[in-house]
């Protein structure tokens, strides 16, 4: 395997995403970026800062505040031979484009009997934790994972932030990438990447352990890792599984970790009720019930809209102590 990039470097998640967009646009003329404030403003999260200057307004397109139209235009452009990266500022606003994503992008291939695939990539920020209150704090990636026909990626690491986009663009079908807003400032080393296609199909064990599995994704990963570290002080070896992909779910990896630890805590910033955590739990129960040595426990967002007030918001969201407590609960100690 050729190592394309030999030097390890430390960058932010934000830089990693920007680098991914830049590289994709350099590599393929069909790739363009469109969304609200991606151009002159530089992106709400400064992800696309500098790209307008580099690629011009045709390929870095500021859109009106018309989520349905520009997401749908992304679908049409993809059908017309382009490889659009559509940035929806946050998942909260994606509800305005839900019809296009769910009724058009996800269904086109199937309704057309396999004639029209939609090679579209939609990126959006997700998650809470920054005191932006109820309408800007949703974690609805689980909703999207409900829909056959789209793929849902949740990069949680610098490496995934950097390389998932390219793989998503190479995918013939609609891919939604959820970037947890709390991750943009995280820093990390970018490991070298070989020239083999980057994996956007499987989950990864981010920390091995033998006593229980912490199953999570996206913004839950740093918390799960911190919890695992804390648990290790109590002599509990937690394995942390980063799902990476919410659709199609890597059931095999989930079952593998449960088969090795026999206990699982699912951490999801979405709500518990009918959420992705329910799906994960159900699959484990369906396919690995006889492996379970304790009831599954979920650490999710409390069943309230996200409050503005800092202490209430913190109380509403999954936090390291909650994960640690849940782990103790399934360990029975």
């Amino acid at each position: 395997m050729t190592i394309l990039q030999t030097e390890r470097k430390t960058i932010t998640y934000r830089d990693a995403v920007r680098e991914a967009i830049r590289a994709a646009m350099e590599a393929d003329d069909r790739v363009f970026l469109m969304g609200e404030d991606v151009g002159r403003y530089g992106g709400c999260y400064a992800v696309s800062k500098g790209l307008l200057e580099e690629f011009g307004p045709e390929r870095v397109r500021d859109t009106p505040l018309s989520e349905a139209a520009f997401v749908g235009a992304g679908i049409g452009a993809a059908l017309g031979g382009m490889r659009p990266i559509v940035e929806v500022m946050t998942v909260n606003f994606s509800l305005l484009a839900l019809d296009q994503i769910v009724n058009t992008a996800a269904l086109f291939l199937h309704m057309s009997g396999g004639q029209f695939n939609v090679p579209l990539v939609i990126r959006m920020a997700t998650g809470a934790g920054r005191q932006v209150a109820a309408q800007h704090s949703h974690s609805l990636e689980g909703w999207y994972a409900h829909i056959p026909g789209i793929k849902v990626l949740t990069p949680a690491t610098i490496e995934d932030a950097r390389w998932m986009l390219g793989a998503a663009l190479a995918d013939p079908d609609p891919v939604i990438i959820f970037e947890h807003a709390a991750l943009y400032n995280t820093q990390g080393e970018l490991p070298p990447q070989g020239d083999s296609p980057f994996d956007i199909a499987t989950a990864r064990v981010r920390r091995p352990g033998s006593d229980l599995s912490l199953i999570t994704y996206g913004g839950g990963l740093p918390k799960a890792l911190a919890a695992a570290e804390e648990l290790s002080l109590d002599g509990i070896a937690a394995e942390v599984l980063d799902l990476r992909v919410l659709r199609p779910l890597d059931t095999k990896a989930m079952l593998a970790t449960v088969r090795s630890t026999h206990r699982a805590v699912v951490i999801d910033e979405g709500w518990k009720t009918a959420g992705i955590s329910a799906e994960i739990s159900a699959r484990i129960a369906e396919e690995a019930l006889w492996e379970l040595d304790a009831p599954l426990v979920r650490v999710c967002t409390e069943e309230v809209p996200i409050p503005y007030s800092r202490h209430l918001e913190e109380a509403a969201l999954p936090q390291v102590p909650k994960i640690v407590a849940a782990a103790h609960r399934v360990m029975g100690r």
Partner: protein
Amino acid sequence: MTDPEHGRHLLREMLRIRRFEEKCAQLYQAEKIRGFLHLYIGEEAVAVGVMEALTPEDAVVATYREHGHALARGMDPGRIMAEMYGKVEGCSRGRGGSMHLFDAGIRFYGGNAIVGGGLPLGVGLGLADHLQGRDRVTAVFFGEGAVAEGEFHESMNLAALWRLPVLFCCENNLYAMGTALNRSESQNRLTLKAASYEMPAWEVDGMDVLAVEEAARMAVESVRGGGGPHFLELRTYRFRAHSMFDPELYRGKDEIEQWKLRDPIESWRSILSEQGLLSDDEWNQMEEEVRAEVQSAVDFAEAGTWEPVDQLTRFVYSEA
């Protein structure tokens, strides 16, 4: 003065739609076709007229009332009928049904059954053409009901803002299912809405196939020439129910009868006859040929096969 052959061609295209759909209604009642079945009868001049203005490279985005568009665009009637039967030989392998006719070969992008949902898609197809410097046009059909949707306004604005090669064809048949335009819009002049986006917009008599064709040709030419998106309000009327099960409480029979007096097929046939461009024999022969074509479509559908259930999960994601 109309070119005789072209005149007869327009008539035949409309007649194909009419007879095909009459057969559909019959087959629906015979339970060969199920689900929703939205008939285009009465509105044939719109699809036929607009399609005349398009080239094979152009694209069409239609609605759930799209048999007419598919036929006029050149989709094989047998594959349409097989689709409605739910057979694997259907244009969408039986996955779509009446509302979701697709054909990549003629750039026919559905068959979109969410009111207003096709507009952003059409804008995107236009965007792709714009970005790739192609002089293709995308014709997006939608009913006047879509005008109340946000997606209509967002799409009109975006297309106009970016001057994309899109022809918006609003088929104003006065009723969004049962909701009359004048009971749902504060501004009934649809062209004014388009004009507010700085988009050329014309009102066209949708019962007059020639008028439609002419307006469409002008608009398409302008769009293709870089004039940005255009809007056509095609005033028409559906003679039959919204779908198959519709007691039509929202409109009077006399209104329907009034509109039927302006039946686009009868009108155009009269004109051709009056001008000596269509003899009774020619008409009868046309009827016979169309009847045979429809019958052959039915035969094709009848002879079709069911997709094996083990194929069920195909076409969710692309196959490598």
